[in-house]
Structure formats: structure tokens, C-alpha cells
């Protein structure tokens, strides 16, 4: 049985909102958010999947990503919502879009959502990263573990950030950090596993957590290789 979930536009046109899960591999990890957005728009056109556009003065396609991906990040789990004109089965959708996407991007799952479903941005619950960091010199695992423990036992971790208006604002990032552990340690590199949670659509960037580790010898820029291994929605 093929189920197609339809929504009706005010003018009677049928649109379907599809939520899809995709992966970004190493080949395309240096795409910026806007490059990736444009890439998807063009891929949908090539796939002959018609996307609904906004009806304003400057029409833009109804395509929303859960989060702007960092340049350089590889991800096993990303999400986006797209409003498609007419009806299309999920199988057809996945088959068509994957044929049109370049190597390095791949849609791995998709399903219909109803109009009014909580937005992706608001549904993000938890995210897991693997962070591979180069070292200036070998560091003993105990030293690293100590730094991790010290960070996690803190009641609050205050960072300062500049607001859009240029004011400096303080923010406690401790509540967002669910777990941090050493996954693997080698002569000149460490892989951390970091789990963060989203609270009221706010979170912390993995790089800031690494900076706050206060561990000498980590080469944070520009060599951190970041992989999102999991993104959980509520």
C-alpha cells in the first residue's frame, strides 16, 4: 500500500511536506551552509521534484535545514524539511533526489509530516559528535582524562560571547554538555566523543567545549576533524 500524505494550499493545490534525513561525507565537507542550500535546490530541480516557493516579493524555496552545518563537518545524520508540490511517494522521492545529488550527499530516510508539525529547529534534542584532534606532542591518557573530569565536574562553565549588537554577554554552557569521553588515543591524535543536548533551541559548539578543556598540546585550529554521528529529534 502506498500512503501519500497531502496538505492543501489555500488555493486548493496539493502540497506534501517531507522530512528527510541525509548524510554528508568527506567529499563535500567544505560546503558552506548557503552552498549546500543552493546545491539541494538545484538537485531538486534536476530530480524534477517541484518545490513550493514562498509567495513574497522575492520567492524562495520552502526548504529548511535543522541546523546550519559547520564548514568541514562530516555528518551521518542531518535533517531537512521540504515542501513539495503535488504528490510523490517516499520511494520515488528518495530515488529521484539521490540520483540528482552529487557524490558526498545522500538521503537515507524520508517521511511525510503534517502541516503544523514542530519545526526541525525546535525539535532538536540531542547531538553526538566524534572530534578527532591532532596533538603537538604525545599526551598521556590520564592527563587527558583528568582534564575531561575537571571540566565535567564544574557546576557552570561560563563563556563570553559577543551579541549581534556588539555587547559582550555571558553564557553558561555546562547544561548543554551531556557527556564527553575519550574514544581513542594515539601517538599524535585523540578522538573525543561528545554528546550535547538542546535546551530552548540553544546549544554549544563542539569547538568551544574543546577550548574549555584547557588541555595544552591540542591543535584546535585548523585540524579538528568533526563528525556528527547522531542527531536526535524529540
Amino acid at each position, binding site marked *: 500500500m502506498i500512503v501519500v500524505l497531502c496538505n492543501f494550499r489555500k488555493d486548493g493545490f496539493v502540497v506534501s511536506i517531507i522530512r528527510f534525513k541525509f548524510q554528508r561525507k568527506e567529499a563535500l565537507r567544505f560546503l558552506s551552509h548557503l552552498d549546500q542550500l543552493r546545491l539541494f535546490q*538545484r*538537485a531538486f530541480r*534536476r530530480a524534477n521534484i517541484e518545490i513550493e516557493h514562498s509567495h513574497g516579493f522575492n520567492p524562495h524555496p520552502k526548504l529548511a535545514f535543522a541546523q546550519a552545518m559547520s564548514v568541514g563537518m562530516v555528518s551521518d545524520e542531518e535533517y531537512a524539511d521540504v515542501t513539495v508540490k503535488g504528490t510523490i511517494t517516499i520511494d520515488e522521492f528518495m530515488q529521484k533526489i539521490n540520483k540528482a545529488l552529487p557524490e558526498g550527499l545522500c538521503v537515507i530516510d524520508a517521511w511525510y509530516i503534517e502541516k503544523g508539525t514542530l519545526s526541525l529547529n525546535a525539535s532538536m534534542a540531542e547531538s553526538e559528535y566524534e572530534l578527532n584532534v591532532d596533538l603537538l606532542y604525545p599526551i598521556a591518557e590520564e592527563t587527558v582524562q583528568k582534564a575531561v573530569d575537571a571540566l565535567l565536574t564544574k557546576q557552570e562553565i561560563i563563556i563570553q560571547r559577543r551579541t549581534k549588537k556588539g555587547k559582550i554577554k555571558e553564557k553558561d554552557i555546562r547544561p548543554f554538555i551531556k557527556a564527553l569521553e575519550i574514544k581513542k588515543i594515539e601517538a599524535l591524535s585523540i578522538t573525543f566523543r561528545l554528546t550535547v543536548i538542546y535546551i530552548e533551541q540553544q546549544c554549544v559548539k563542539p569547538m568551544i567545549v574543546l577550548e574549555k578543556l584547557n588541555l595544552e598540546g591540542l591543535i584546535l585550529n585548523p585540524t579538528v576533524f568533526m563528525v556528527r554521528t547522531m542527531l536526535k529529534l524529540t
Partner: protein
Amino acid sequence: MSHLGMKLIYPMLNRREDTWCERSFAPWIDMEKQLRDHDLPLFAIESMTPLCDFDFVGFTLQYEMSFTNIINMLDLGKIPIRSTDRTMEDPIVIAGGPCASNPEPLADFVDIFFIGDAEVTLDDLLDLYKAWKKTKKPRIDFLKKAVALDGIYVPAFYKPTYNTDGTLKDFQPIVEEAPQKVRKCFVDDLNTAYYPETLLVPYTSTVHDRVSYEIFRGCGRGCRFCQAGMLYRPTREKTSETIKNQIDVLLKNTGYDEISLASLSSGDYPGIETLIKDLVDQYESDNISVSLPSLRIDSVSIDMLEQMQKVRKSGVTLAPEAGTQRLRDVINKGVTEADLMQTVEDAFKKKFGHIKLYFMMGLPTETDEDIAGIAHLGHKVVEAYFDTDESLRNRSLKVVLSTACFVPKPFTPFQWEPQDTMDEFVRKQKHLKNEIKSRKITYNWQDSQLSYLEAIFARGDRRLCKLLEAAQKAGCRFDGWSRMFDYDTWLQLIEELEIDGAFYACRQREKEELFPWDFIDIGVTKEYLYHENQKAKLGELTPYCKEECNDCGVMQFQEGWVCSEHYTV
């Protein structure tokens, strides 16, 4: 990634079973530093193969001030800079494009130049190469075979001699295979010629990030400063059916949401209004927009602009080129102040608030009155805005006047003319600034130092090769980028090498002078160009080709060719 020629050649080569073509671009200075620091060769993008490992390395010659980049890329790609130093291990260096019309400043660096449309002989050249490669004979054998093809120029096979005053005395082939004159190639029928079904779609946004589609080649307007207008004759149009079909395929295969109808003067395409209307009607519901890159004032109707900008709205750019009617007649631009004002008034009524006007400074016979005329036009445009009913016009107004320094180019009626000196350009720019009284007008001008060098290379000969080589060694790159352009270094090298810049740029040439590019036959004759030069001085207009044949020579160039069979009036 913006160049249309590359987008055409790349798939054309890759369609061959036996050929694999990749792209490589001049790296920016930071990347160059990394390559040099780590002793890495410049590589091609697709497979990261070093340039030196290819059979051919080809360059597009868009602009004289990119010449140092070409030498630098050869150097970075570990290819000997000079043709004479290359061995069997090295690639054949080829080049083509508009600047190949005077290839002489690059004569020592390039093995083979393509003169005219490369589509015609590219496949033949590769076939010759394939056959030659099996024979394992020296490079010169291949080059000798190559010159048998039309439009192929091998600079090593020619030798110039000079008069005591520095002008060219003689230019002769030194091998019997090389022809006395190199005839350009041109595609007879663009409807049946190869055109790609897909384009490279970049991930990052590039300039001209859209389906750039060539609707016709050549232009018969005969503006006397314009090199492309002479080089790409005769005019060859695609039928609207070909255009629509090919565009549809390109849109489907690329996913682009914008089409640009490219040519030397797209407004001149017969039935352009219908074509645009058809395209807008067909693609509007898909949110695909249509644009025209270059428009003559007398060919644009603002309705047409409005049609195109239904989806996205921007400003209007117009090119009167000169400030007075007298000077516009000298350059045979043909448009009138009335044309301009009509267009501008219509634009204001349609709520366009941003008008940009392009001019050239230093055109032959130009006086201070012509310069003041530029400001005068600007003021009239501002007046036209305030004369427009307040309820109709845009709430804000910006008029941009921009002047470029005229560079006389080979194969134009002005190829005999001197360029203004840099002091004169600066004086004229100041004069214009003083003449502009309205605060609504912004004036942009182009740097005269860069134009001076451009003029040297545009009409240069092979004695300039040593200057280019020295400039690359001295670190000159990306000279067309103002922040990279190092005029002092160039000036110093010109002095050290005892080159007379004014000889190339600012000298009035005699009618009979033999030019370094005269060995190329582009179809349009030198007699015709000189005749046009004389008419320019009298301010006499030459009609548009389609209205009346002016006997430029292109009809005699290819047997049986009749221009009017390849365009519609």
C-alpha cells in the same frame, strides 16, 4: 568558472572516448605560497594530476592583464616557461580566445594558438596528435602537421625583422609547412554545431552562476572601438527553436534557476522580445528568471526589462560610451541622446531607481567638451527622475557614471590610433569630476596605469615576451586585480629592459605600417578597417550590416558564404 568558452570546450573534449579533460585555475597568492613552500606542482581539479603530466595544457586568453598568470601557472605546473625548453616529456601548450588575435606577446611561451572558433579544428588537432604520439617523433613533427589545419598558428615557425625605428619590417614563416597567412576558423552553422547538454555546476557561487546561453555569434553593428565586433564576424544566429530546445535541456540537467542570453549584443537578436516572452512564460511558474547581459540603448525596451525582472528586480545599466553625439558618431555607436533619455524615462516610470552609465575616456578626437558631455548626460538623467511623477517613481535615486580608459585594439578601425597618456587620463578624470554637480551622481573611474599596460600588450610584439617573463619572476600576478597590480615593478622592468612603452601604447601609426598581427586573416580586411578609421575622423556613420552590406571582406573570406543567409532581419 564563469567563462562560456571553457564550458563549451570542456564537455566537447570529454565527449571523446579517447580524451580526458580537466580544469585548473590560477591559484590565489596564498595557495601559490603553499604550493611553492611544499614544492607541490599546480594540479588539475578533477584528479589532482600535475599540469606537467598532461598531453596538452590550454589557456583561454580573455584579457591582456592575465598574461603573467599564464606564465606563472606554467611555472607552478612544472612546465618549462619557454616553448624552446620543452621536451618530449612536456605538454603541448595551447591557447585561444579573443587575445589570440594578437598572440605575439605570448609567442615564446605558447606552442600552438587557435585563431577563431576552436570548435572547428579541435577534434582534428587531437586526431593528429594521437597519430603523431604513436610515431614517437620529435615535437616539431607534430607542430608541422598541426599548421596544415586552418586557424592554427605556431609562433616558433615565424621570424620577424624590424626597421631601425622599431616598427615591424617583415614577418615570414621559416618552415615550408607554415602558411604565409593564418586564416581564422569560424563555425558556419551554430544550429548544427556542437553545444553541450550540461554544464559544470559549481558548489560555491561564481560570477555568472547561471545557464549562460549563446544565442548568436558575431555582431554587425560596427562600433569602431570594438574588437569582438570585427573578430567574430560574420554574424551567425541560432534559430529560436534551437535556443529553446537547448536551454530546456541545460536547465533540466543543471538545475539552475536563471538563464542569461549571451552574445555581443543580445538586444539585436531578431524577435528578442518574443523569445524572452516565450521563455518567461514557459519558466516563470518554475521560478526561473531570464536575463540579458548586454543591451544597446536603442534595442532595449523597458517593457522587456520588466518582463525579465518579473522574478527578481535590479537596476538598469546602459552604455552610451561617449558623452556627445559628435563622439558617438566617431565611434559609430549610433545611439542618440533621445534614445537614452527615452529609455531612462521609461525606467523611472517602472520604479527603477538605479541607473548605471558606462563611458570610455580617451577615444580618438575626444575634447574637453566631450568629457563635459558625460556629466551633462548624468545631469539630464537626474532631471528626468525628478520630472517623473512622484507616485510612479522609485523613492530613491542613484546614478552611477563610470569611465574606462580607451585601449586601442588590433583588428579595429582604431588600431592605428595612440592611447591618451596617463597624465591626460588623470586630467580628464579630474575635469569630469569637476563638471559633476549633482549629489545623486556617483563617479567611478578606471585606473589609467593598468590601461596603459593593457595597451602595450594589446598591440605588442614578441619583443615583449622578456618583459612578461621578468614580471612573473618579479612577482607580478593577477594584474587585473587592483589590490595585486604593482605598477612600480612593471615600470621598473620596462626601464631595465629598455622597452619604450609609449612606442606601443601612445604612438600614432602610419597607414602603411606592418602590424605584428597582420599575418592573421580574420576575414575583415585591413583596407576596410582603414576606411572606417577615415570615416571616424569625419564623423561619418556606417550602417548596421543587416541594413546594408559595407563590404568588410568577410563575404569574400570563405567561398560561397552569404552573410544574409545566416541571420534574419
